[in-house]
């Protein structure tokens, strides 16, 4: 009995890590943009949805298999992010941040409208690249899809970390985000670095979207709840902390899954309010999150 309960618990943890990985990827996208542009990109979810539809079109209409479509979509999403920054965000970036916030909300609506117009609101199915098999690891039954999702998100996070930490362009990206004026003085072309940040964020979103679609189904609203979860994850980790976004995403994924299963009255339907509760509690108790540094203003 106890062993069975434990196995069941572990299954829920693994499946929570899989959804948490998706939240982490999108939360990391939010953090990258928040660090550089100073706002929450409310259109991050819709950008991801659009990219996922591109992947779907490539697989269904053009007969590509999942992974080539995945790679092509990653490339597309990067360009999409860069162009979005250059064309839409950059012109309003100076001055009040509210302007950028409103533009990102406008983008959310515009992209959502475009997706519905182009692909209709009908839910579509994107086949899982990992199949539907399950593995039995010491009595714990886990789905290959969950393991694959966790592996891909961890992989992409590690790649990004290597880029930011060990490459010249990564250093320039960080410098441009924390201190744009100084960065320009040493010769960093800051506006391009910001565009690059938007590109990387869009890639993370696209990956999150392509990993989500097989399990929840692809529709124009697919990423909206996930954006809320990602937002909660980013707040929980500290909105300016990339590590925090990843830890926050995984924690939230596991937590929500366990609450959904073990707390009867919450169930699957009340997960979203729980995420909002997390946002509220963190902002009230520790606004800088788990890994963020409290903001210190010199007077």
């Amino acid at each position, binding site marked *: 009995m106890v062993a069975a309960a434990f196995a069941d618990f572990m299954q829920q943890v693994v499946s929570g890590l899989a959804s948490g990985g998706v939240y982490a990827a999108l939360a990391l996208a939010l953090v990258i943009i928040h660090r550089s542009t100073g706002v929450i990109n409310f259109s991050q979810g819709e950008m991801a949805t659009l990219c996922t539809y591109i992947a779907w079109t490539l697989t269904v209409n053009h007969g590509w298999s999942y992974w080539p479509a995945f790679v092509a979509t990653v490339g597309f999403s990067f360009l999409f992010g860069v162009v979005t920054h250059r064309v839409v965000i950059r012109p309003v970036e100076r001055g009040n941040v509210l302007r950028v916030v409103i533009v990102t909300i406008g983008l959310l609506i515009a992209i959502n409208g475009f997706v519905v117009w182009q692909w209709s609101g009908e839910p579509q199915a994107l086949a899982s690249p990992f199949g539907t098999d399950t593995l039995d690891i010491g009595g714990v039954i886990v789905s290959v899809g969950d393991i694959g999702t966790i592996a891909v998100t961890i992989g992409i996070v590690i790649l990004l970390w290597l880029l930011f930490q060990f490459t*010249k362009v990564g*250093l*320039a990206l*960080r410098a441009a985000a924390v201190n744009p004026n*100084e960065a*320009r*003085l*040493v*010769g960093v072309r800051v506006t391009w670095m910001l565009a690059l940040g938007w590109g990387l964020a869009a890639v993370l979103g696209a990956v999150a979207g392509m990993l989500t679609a097989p399990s929840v189904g692809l529709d124009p609203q697919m990423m909206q709840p996930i954006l809320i979860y990602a937002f909660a994850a980013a707040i929980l980790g500290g909105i300016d902390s990339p590590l925090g976004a990843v830890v926050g995403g995984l924690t939230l994924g596991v937590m929500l899954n366990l609450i959904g299963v073990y707390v009867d009255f919450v169930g699957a339907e009340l997960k979203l309010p729980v995420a909002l509760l997390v946002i509220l509690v963190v902002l009230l108790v520790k606004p800088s999150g788990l890994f963020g540094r409290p903001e210190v203003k010199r007077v």
Partner: protein
Amino acid sequence: MTTLLELDQVEAHYGPVQALRDVSLTVSEGEVVAVLGANGAGKTTTLRAISGTVSRSGSIELAGKQIRGGPEAAAKAGIAHVPEGRGTFVELSVTENLKLGAYTRRDRQVKEDIARMSEYFPWMVERGGQRAGTLSGGEQQMLALARALMGRPRLLLLDEPSLGLAPMIVREFFRIVRELNEKEGLTVLVVEQDARIALRSSSRAYVLEVGRVALTGTSEQLQGDESVRRSYLGY
């Protein structure tokens, strides 16, 4: 001596406010030149005009070539600007700050240059992993200088390096600048509130008043000039 930097009738504006009216000055290769003046005379703006961080008109030439565009272009042309209030990336490590200083370089000797910084700043290499924001004010100013050197600049612009630092550290800072000038032929244009140390460390100087060059001469001459003595040296 060949002229490295030449400003001819440079004007600069902050919105509607004119900060530089008519600034003409030259700096020769291997020279240390000081710019003195009261608050608001246009000292900082002169440096900003050179590095392209303020919109300006008139002619600014580095080694006979017009400098146009923003600070990225100036950095590429070989101008290293250490801004007022220490220009360090406080969230990044000491080594990362140094690497950023070499951002425009394409050669493969950046690592050697980082190691070489210990000649002038012995503490810097062993504390390479420390976040710049946790350094003392004096150390941050030294780091800003070291970062500027990492770009192997043709011209170093220093804006009020003495600001907020203890006198001993200011002297140490200027000693290193003079050493760099003598040993490596580094050309320096330094803006400084502390006229005494600026005149002692430079060969020539300009005095700015309300956006114009009011007076110029060798530092020795200016140290002896009565009006300079009264206004800026205080005796």
